[in-house]
């Protein structure tokens, strides 16, 4: 018995199983139905999603894109001057305070209290001009996350953990040497510790260097009446005081300029929530709101694949019946007579059902994602842009999830030999956790655990936009953020499928058919 013979034998058995599959009309029809419900429900939910930006023209303001092509928030108050070539900026931050708007106690009456958001940020920045979305690197103190060095919106490096106060001010220094920016922090202005280095994309010779303050909104989450949770971001702002401001390098002929980057204007022309800066005796006080971060406010492209849950149920039914029907009709005895190596016969069945469902999944997702995205955009929804590789991962991941679920269902069908039990088991393992995690009254932590330890973890393959720990947002499964990384989640699903298949091979070998 050689290895090559084993492969040929598996190929022969797979061909036999493929012949069985394609000649049973119900199963082929089932696959077509799985594709159709996935596409149909996906497009239906996409066309049921409308949004508008209001106003007389109803034109949404363009969302700035970062150097990496991702949608970004880029709103802060910038006190800056031009820096030509290499140089550095050094400041001492003596305080970081702020204001936060809380949920209204009496409707319509604003309740603003003093307080600092955990990710309120202020410090020094070097940026490629004042255009929103331009490349930058910044060194900052934050409300509760210590000193950070961030650049180009998505990158974040932690520095010292200490906060900032009058008694314990913090010195920050950002230097430029060629394309490389380096950040340093210090408690006393003499002993400096390196925080990190950054190479912002395509930084020109002349850049803007200066002080900034920004503050993301205050996040509150409450239980929704119909299940799930409702998150709201309310206005918050941060104010920082700087002194010992020193800029070295080519700053010829420039003075400090103030810019409220990304300020939104109200219909009357006034700035909505303006920032500001004052200078007195070498002390700069800068107030800002908004955030410099990847944007989380928008639809994700995988939202169009919501019909997959229905498609999964159909695939589970077909995969289970693919084996239980053999038991019911007695065909299993013929099958095992033709392929007496039972493990190999089961593998052939798994290969066929996986290949068929993968193909069906590619067809379903390949149609739904581009078409659904088109419908969402036409309805005025903003889709967070992702790269072509991510799009590909969402489509292929959906197909892979279908294939793995089909193998799991097939294995359960082999173990139980009864379609009712196997179908229920597979649905309870894959579909139910996902539904419970996204729509029930379960607390977010319980939902996250469900999506970590059940085969539903594989849904993480569909998440197109990552969660950023340095960005304030409600990263719940309901909002489309899974607790595991895409491939880690898929590995959990695969683990279940492999385990179930091994168990199925074992009982198939031990048991009389």
């Amino acid at each position, binding site marked *: 018995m050689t290895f090559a013979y084993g492969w040929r034998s598996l190929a022969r058995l797979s061909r036999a199983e493929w012949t069985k599959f394609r000649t049973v009309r*119900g199963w082929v029809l089932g696959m077509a139905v799985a594709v159709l419900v996935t596409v149909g*429900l996906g497009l*239906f*939910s996409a066309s*049921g*999603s*409308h*949004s508008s930006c209001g106003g007389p023209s109803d034109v949404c303001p363009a969302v700035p894109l970062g150097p990496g092509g991702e949608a970004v928030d880029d709103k802060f108050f910038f006190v800056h001057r031009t820096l030509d070539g290499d140089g550095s900026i050094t400041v001492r931050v003596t305080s970081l305070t702020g204001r936060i708007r809380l949920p209204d106690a009496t409707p319509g009456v604003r309740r603003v209290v003093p307080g600092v958001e955990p990710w309120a940020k202020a410090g020094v920045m070097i940026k490629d001009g004042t255009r929103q979305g331009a490349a930058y690197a910044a060194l900052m103190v934050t409300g509760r996350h210590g000193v950070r060095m961030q650049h180009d919106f998505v990158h974040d490096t932690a520095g010292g953990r200490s906060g900032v106060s009058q008694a314990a001010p913090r010195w920050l220094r950002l230097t430029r040497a060629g394309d490389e920016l380096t950040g340093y922090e210090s408690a006393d202005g003499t002993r400096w510790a390196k925080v990190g280095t950054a190479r912002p994309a395509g930084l020109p010779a002349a850049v803007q260097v200066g002080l900034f303050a920004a503050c993301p909104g205050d996040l509150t989450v*409450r*239980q929704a*009446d*119909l*299940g*799930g949770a409702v998150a709201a971001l309310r206005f918050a702002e941060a104010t920082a005081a700087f002194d010992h401001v020193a800029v070295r390098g080519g700053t010829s002929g420039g003075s400090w300029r103030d810019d409220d980057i990304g300020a939104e204007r109200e219909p009357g022309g006034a700035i909505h929530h303006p920032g500001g800066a004052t200078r007195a005796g070498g002390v700069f006080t800068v107030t800002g709101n908004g955030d410099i971060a990847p944007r989380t406010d928008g639809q994700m492209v995988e*939202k169009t694949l*919501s019909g997959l*849950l*229905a498609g999964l*149920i*159909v695939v*589970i*039914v077909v995969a*289970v*019946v693919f084996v*239980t029907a053999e038991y*019911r009709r007695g065909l299993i005895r013929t099958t095992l007579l033709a392929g007496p190596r039972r493990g190999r016969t089961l593998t052939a069945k798994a290969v066929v059902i996986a290949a068929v469902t993968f193909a069906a999944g590619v067809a379903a997702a390949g149609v739904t994602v581009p078409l659904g995205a088109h419908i969402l955009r036409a309805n005025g*929804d903003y889709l967070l842009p992702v790269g072509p590789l991510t799009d590909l991962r969402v489509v292929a991941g959906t197909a892979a999830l279908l294939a793995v679920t089909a193998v799991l269902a097939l294995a359960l069908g082999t173990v139980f030999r009864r*379609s*009712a*039990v196997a*179908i*229920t088991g597979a*649905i*309870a393992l894959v*579909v*139910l956790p996902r*539904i*419970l995690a*996204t*729509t*029930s*009254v*379960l*607390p977010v932590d*319980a939902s996250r655990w469900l999506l970590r330890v059940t085969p539903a973890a594989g849904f993480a393959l569909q998440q197109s936009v990552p969660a950023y720990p340095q960005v304030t947002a409600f990263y719940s499964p*309901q909002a489309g953020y899974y607790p595991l990384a895409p491939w880690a989640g898929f590995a959990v699903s695969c683990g279940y499928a492999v385990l179930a298949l091994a168990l199925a091979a074992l009982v198939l070998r031990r048991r009389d058919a």
Partner: protein
Amino acid sequence: MRELRAEWTKLRTLPSTFWLLLAAVALTVTVSAAAAAIVSCPSAGCRYDAPKIGLSGVQAGQAIVVILAVLSAGGEYGTGMIRTTLTAMPRRTAVLAAKATLLTALTSAAGTAAVLGSVLAARLILPGNGFVPAHGYPTLSLADGPTLRAAAGSVVYLALIALLGLGVATAVRDSATAIGLVFGLLYVLSVLPYLVTDPYWGRFLWRISPMNAGLAVQSTAHLSSLPVGPWAGLCVLAAWAGAGLLTGGLLFRLRDA
């Protein structure tokens, strides 16, 4: 009457019937207890609906009821028993009615046990998680009108789910397909309202989804924000079950077995 006795003998002598009923009770109580153990209310104003949490196991237990209901009709088609049944009892409507009556009785009995167990578990567990009178949650009790409505409504809900399962299984004559269909109707339709952002469509889909509308009977708080009232929601489910039974019954009469 003869049909009822015959169906009862069949159902009673199937070992799976007993185990499925037991599983339905056990699963419902376990999931309810787990939900009660997970949810916590650290301070006043946490907006949870305590009786609904205590009865959330019904969402899982109904799956077992669906299996029982589907197998009571689909199983006969799988084994060919249906031909014997119809030879012995040619009045097909009476056969289906007997099946429906027995299923209703059995699931109501099991449902009552499951619901009582769930309420008891929640009554014992919830106060430990901050659901105390100081936070606006009196101890769960069936003497409380809305709680009694939620509990009794859950039993009716389970019985209606069984009838829906029976109707679908009779219509499609195959257990696997019927189970897939019923689970799709229950679980997939229940998430659809959350997938559309348009509020009108969302509420409409919520109203016609058998699971969302049917389980509205468990709500005791924020009733005004529900797209459909508790009893009206149960009527939506009853309409689904009725439509399922009617379709199944008509096809059962018109078609060869």
